[in-house]
Structure formats: structure tokens, C-alpha cells
């Protein structure tokens, strides 16, 4: 039986796809057979971030409609062993994913994989609800910014009322993943701190990913940023994956860099 983890946020553009790709890769690197599923129907992008866009033949909707088998649609990652991608469909039909169809596919994947990572579309409507419905756990991606935090709370409300586990009177285990964090701006009181967001949402923290140029570089190249272990963001994702697996890992990259007086005077970064 696989563990199904949805990566969700409510607000768009906060780093769900970046995080899904990194976390799925991280889990596979730790030896857990993992599949990452793109639920963003019509806006397929996970394939680009994973660098497999030219190998997409069939997609999630083809499998649901029995136009292809699961094995035909799954793309085996070329860099990381034990990692597979199920791409989203490019159809404009918003109802292409049916509840029964999704359930059948997830059940089939469950037989073969340890982890199923679901990359949710933005919003709190049908698409996002479909992505989280079958989840055992949820990673709520949040930026330290007012509208993102509020939307995270809205998606928490949906997880607690509209998921399958909620309907069965059980909880979906929640994890807070704070991304695009800028410790320097937190130090100058321009940005909400990790502690602030934790206190407002009251969800256990699984990781803090710093704002990093490495993320754009990684997406340009189609290699999940976790593979760039030189970068802060890559290391922070590795820490988050280890915490997800139950380890206790100290937080890094959450303190402002101490700058010397002269550097500050000259405006050094």
C-alpha cells in the first residue's frame, strides 16, 4: 500500500510543482519507489520541471479513458532510479478527471509504489479537490506572504472537510512547507517569519526552502532542484524529505547572513 501525499496550496505560483518534483526525487533517492502525478489538467508543467517533456506519449486522462495502460503512460525518470512520472492531460475539459477514474489509477499505482506524490493545481475548486481527495498526507506549500497564508488556511479547511479521510472521520496528516523564504527580509521585519506562519496556521513544519536562484536554474535545465546539492534550496529539500520520513533534522538557512559593518555600508549582498 502506497502512501498518497498531495502537494497543495490554494494560491497559485507558490512552488507546488517545484516542491513535488524535488520531494518525489528526494524520496526515490532515499530508496523509496515513488511516482509523481500531475493533477494540473490543461496546464501540464511537471514534465518540464522533471525534464521529461519530450517523452510524454500518453497521460493521466488517457489511462482513465482506457486509451492507454498505466505502464504505457508512466515515464521512468532517467536520472533517478525508482522514480516515475504520470503526466497531466493537456485537454481543456475540466471534467476529464473523474473520481472513479482517479481512484482506479491510484489503486493500481498503490500496488507498485511506496509513495504517490500528487501535484495539485492552484485554487480550492474541483481540480484541487480531486488532487487531495484520496490523500493520506498533505504538504501545504506556503509563501511568507498574506494571501498565500490565508489560502493555505482555506485549503486546510477543505482537507479537513472534503477529503475522503475527513468523510470517514479520519485526518489527513498535515505538513507545512514554507518556500521562497528570505531570512534577510525577515530580519528587517519586512517578511513573516517561520514562527509567525507556524503560529497562524498551527500546522507542523516539514521544511523551509529559501528563495534561491538555483530554482530557476533547475527549471531551465529540467532537473529537480534537489539534485543541485550545492544549492541551499536543494539541501533544504533534502532535509524536508528526511523529516517527511520521520527523521529529526535541524533547520538550516533560516537565519539572516551576518554581514560585516563595511559590507552593509557598501550595500553588499
Amino acid at each position: 500500500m502506497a502512501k498518497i501525499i498531495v502537494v497543495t496550496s490554494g494560491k497559485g505560483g507558490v512552488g507546488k510543482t517545484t516542491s513535488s518534483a524535488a520531494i518525489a526525487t528526494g524520496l526515490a533517492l532515499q530508496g523509496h519507489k515513488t511516482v509523481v502525478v500531475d493533477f494540473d489538467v490543461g496546464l501540464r508543467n511537471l514534465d518540464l520541471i522533471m525534464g521529461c517533456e519530450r517523452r510524454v506519449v500518453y497521460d493521466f486522462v488517457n489511462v482513465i479513458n482506457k486509451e492507454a495502460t498505466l505502464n504505457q503512460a508512466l515515464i521512468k525518470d532517467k536520472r533517478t532510479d525508482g522514480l516515475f512520472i504520470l503526466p497531466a492531460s493537456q485537454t481543456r475539459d475540466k471534467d476529464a478527471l473523474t473520481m472513479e477514474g482517479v481512484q482506479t489509477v491510484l489503486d493500481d499505482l498503490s500496488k507498485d509504489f511506496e509513495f504517490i506524490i500528487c501535484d495539485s493545481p492552484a485554487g480550492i475548486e474541483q481540480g484541487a479537490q480531486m488532487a487531495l481527495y484520496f490523500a493520506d498526507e498533505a504538504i501545504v506549500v506556503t509563501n511568507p506572504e498574506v494571501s498565500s497564508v490565508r489560502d493555505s488556511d482555506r485549503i486546510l479547511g477543505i482537507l479537513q472537510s472534503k477529503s475522503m479521510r475527513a468523510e470517514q472521520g479520519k485526518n489527513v496528516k498535515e505538513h507545512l512547507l514554507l518556500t521562497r523564504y528570505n531570512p534577510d527580509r525577515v530580519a528587517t521585519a519586512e517578511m513573516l517569519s517561520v514562527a509567525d506562519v507556524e503560529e497562524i496556521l498551527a500546522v507542523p513544519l516539514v521544511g523551509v526552502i529559501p528563495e534561491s536562484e538555483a530554482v530557476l536554474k533547475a527549471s531551465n535545465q529540467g532537473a529537480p532542484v534537489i539534485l543541485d546539492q550545492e544549492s541551499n534550496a536543494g539541501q533544504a529539500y533534502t532535509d524536508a524529505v528526511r523529516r517527511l520520513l520521520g527523521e529529526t533534522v535541524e533547520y538550516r538557512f533560516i537565519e539572516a547572513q551576518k554581514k560585516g559593518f563595511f559590507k552593509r555600508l557598501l550595500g553588499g549582498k
Partner: protein
Amino acid sequence: MGIFDYLLKKGKPNTAAVAKERLQIIVAHERRKRTEPDYLPMMQQEILEVIRKYVQIADDQVSVQLEDSDDCSVLELNITLPE
């Protein structure tokens, strides 16, 4: 940060604290709304109608809230009467 920012920094408002306070209020409000029983809006409407038999008040002059404390729920009814 250059020298000017550095000198100006003293007078800078703490915008993160403002954000935090606003979020705490709105999140608490929205969470309460999510968990309140379905009958609450209807009940509020009926209470409003009863009061209007006697005093003219606007919709927003009645507020009904359900607060959960340890071993009981408290229904808090707030009615502001005109002068």
C-alpha cells in the same frame, strides 16, 4: 542594503508584525465560520426578524457566534440597538 537604507531603517515600520496580526484575525474568523453549524445563518435571520417586530435594526446589528470552550459551547448573541 546601502548606507541610506541603513540610516533610514530606524524609522521603518514593522510590516511583518502588521501582516501577522491581520492574518491571525482573519484566519480565526474564517475558521470559526467553517466549523459553525449549518443552522446558524438561518437562526440569525430569524432572530433578526423577531427583533424587528419591536425595533428597527440593520442586518449587521445582530451577530451570532458559537464559541467552543472545554466542556460546553456558548452561543453568543450581540444586538446593537439604535440610539
